[in-house]
């Protein structure tokens, strides 16, 4: 037991249960009137240590030797961002990463570098420089025309080993999460998913990565003290996009990789764009969502009309998806997508916890529901109580007027 990373000292514990209440992971239980930590559940977050008035919980020092630790952290320099592109177009998440990356790089006195993988994309590097990159690493190959897990991961691994960045950021998109999870394992990096806050610890210079867990019910701040790079995926729409500064200068480095690195066992057979999507909801600044309150599939048209006037994406609750009213790709929530728009308008959605898990970090939430007790009103910035079949079309009309469309 003395090797256990966290222990309750039996002679000090009085069985007051304060630690049990403090544990976000339900890892502490009472046994014979003393607290016992279930190690297989414990994440060693340390939340219980300060709440114990009797100093009965001790954590093993975190500077014990660790496997794969980097001996000389200073050999790792620069902040890298993965420049996500689709069909040759740089995605907006990339500009958000450049905006955030610039701040981190400046604080650390390091360069901000973008990594661009693609085919025939060399003319896009200027765009990345204008948005804040000091250097752009480009790997140009036909195999990289569109995202493929294996060659993309292998190329990134190769570049990271060669150039040793201190930090590597990527969007928490489907592509981003599939990609960097593979990369982090191979370069033995720490990887924090879906961050909504990044900062530099002024003392240690570590990257403090803050992210929601349990559907946003708790937040965790995570560091990677001994491994490099410190890798994180970043949630859409949380960080501010870097603005264009046409006068900025930067360098472009064309990197060569071995043919071996570009091989893929998995192969794309075809790509079918979604017919229904007017807009990828993860990227939308405004989302209008419909739920079971719409009562029938054809009534989604009133949601779509409002969305069109607002230039918004269309979302939905799971109930509407399960009823077959709208494709799954529009589902917001625990078993759907997590979104973080500036404005989220929920029409006929009750606001069960699984739905809230996917949208409660939106800046402004508008709820339209005829039931004044619907839980959605507890998180709504503005609530309209009433019949959505009257309210939503009226809202569309009034917005049309107000926006002079």
């Amino acid at each position, binding site marked *: 037991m003395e090797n256990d990373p966290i222990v309750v000292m039996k002679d000090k514990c009085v069985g007051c249960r304060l630690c049990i209440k403090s544990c976000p992971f339900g890892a502490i239980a009472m046994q014979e009137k003393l607290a016992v930590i*279930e190690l297989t559940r414990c994440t060693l977050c340390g939340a219980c240590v300060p709440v114990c008035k009797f100093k009965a919980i001790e954590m093993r020092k975190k500077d014990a030797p660790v*496997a794969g630790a980097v001996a000389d952290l200073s050999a790792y320099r620069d902040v890298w961002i993965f420049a996500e592109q689709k069909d040759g177009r740089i995605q907006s998440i990339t500009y958000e990463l450049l905006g955030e990356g610039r701040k981190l790089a400046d604080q650390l006195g390091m360069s901000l570098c973008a990594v661009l993988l693609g085919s025939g994309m060399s003319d896009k590097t200027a765009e990345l420089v204008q948005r804040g990159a000091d250097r752009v690493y480009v790997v140009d190959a036909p195999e990289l025309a569109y995202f493929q897990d294996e060659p993309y991961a292998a190329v990134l691994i190769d570049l990271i080993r060669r150039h040793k960045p201190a930090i590597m950021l990527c969007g928490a998109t489907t592509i981003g999460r599939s990609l960097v999870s593979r990369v982090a394992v191979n370069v033995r990096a720490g990887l924090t998913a879906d961050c909504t806050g990044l900062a530099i610890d002024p003392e240690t210079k570590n990257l403090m990565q803050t992210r929601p867990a349990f559907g*946003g019910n708790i937040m965790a701040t995570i560091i990677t003290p001994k491994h490099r790079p410190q890798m994180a995926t970043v949630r859409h729409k949380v960080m501010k996009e870097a603005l264009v500064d046409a006068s900025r200068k930067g360098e472009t480095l064309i990197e060569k990789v071995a043919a071996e690195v570009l091989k893929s066992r998995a192969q794309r057979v075809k790509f079918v764009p979604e017919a229904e999507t007017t807009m990828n909801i993860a990227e939308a600044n405004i989302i209008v969502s419909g739920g079971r309150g719409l009562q029938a599939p054809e009534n989604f048209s009133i949601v779509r009309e409002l969305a069109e006037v607002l230039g918004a994406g269309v979302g939905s609750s799971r109930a509407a998806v399960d009823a077959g009213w709208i494709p799954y790709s529009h589902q917001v929530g625990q078993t759907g997508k997590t979104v973080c728009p500036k404005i989220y308008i929920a029409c006929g959605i009750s606001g069960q916890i699984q739905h809230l898990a996917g949208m409660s970090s939106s800046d402004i939430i508008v709820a339209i529901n005829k039931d004044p007790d619907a839980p959605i009103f507890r998180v709504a910035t503005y609530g309209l109580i009433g019949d959505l079949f009257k309210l939503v079309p009226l809202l569309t009309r009034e917005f049309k007027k107000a926006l002079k469309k």
Partner: protein
Amino acid sequence: MHIVVCIKQVPDTADVKIDPKTNTLIREGVVSIINPFDMYAIEESIRLKEKLGGKVTAITMGPPQAENALREAISMGVDAGILVSDRAFAGSDTWATSYTLAMALKKIGDYGVIMCGKQASDGDTAQVGPGIAAHLDLPQITYVRKIEEISADHVVGERLLEEGTEVIRAPVPCVLTVVKEINEPRLPSLKGKLAAKKAQITHWKADDLKAEKGNLGLDGSPTKVVKIFTPPARQGGQIFKGEPEEIVPQLVEKLKDAVIAAAS
């Protein structure tokens, strides 16, 4: 084919409540369930077996109680369960978790398709599936919404991307992570429930895995949690009641600037 499905026991979010006074998570009395996405992975594994023959093994790394999750999987039609449990795994992040599961898969040896859920509802990382693929150097298809074709040596799956569907063909063995759209999980049959009761669950500890000790648990985890806190609770805002013709213009007035700002 030997299909292995990786499942995780998580707290039931429908049960998770926030203490309104202290604004902390109330965890006492919260029941554990199989991670919702893993239910789809279990169902799909059983369907593949029904098509191809072979067997399905469910594997979980977790506390002794996670045996219940394995039994539930068996009640649906999974053939065997393996519980990987050891205090040496304490503090595992996704690096160490995917390493441990990969070592367990190596011990299983004859795996074909390895199924995972898209992500777990407690950590929401979606990193463990691709992590396992990386440790085992296997190809992967993430976010699978349909399996179009499967044989002993290849699988063709539809992957749900933000703006459409990509059809990918991968050789077996490989790792798939699945989304909700893929199927409708079945309920356990009576026969299944009986089988679950009687089933012998295999227990593996760290020593059984030929794992490098330094790669396990806290020591094997590059990330460290330094702080856990509850976000400030969202306050309910302004409620408009009254005639639609009155309240709608009021709301539009409030929102107009934000809409214009969002559009630019």
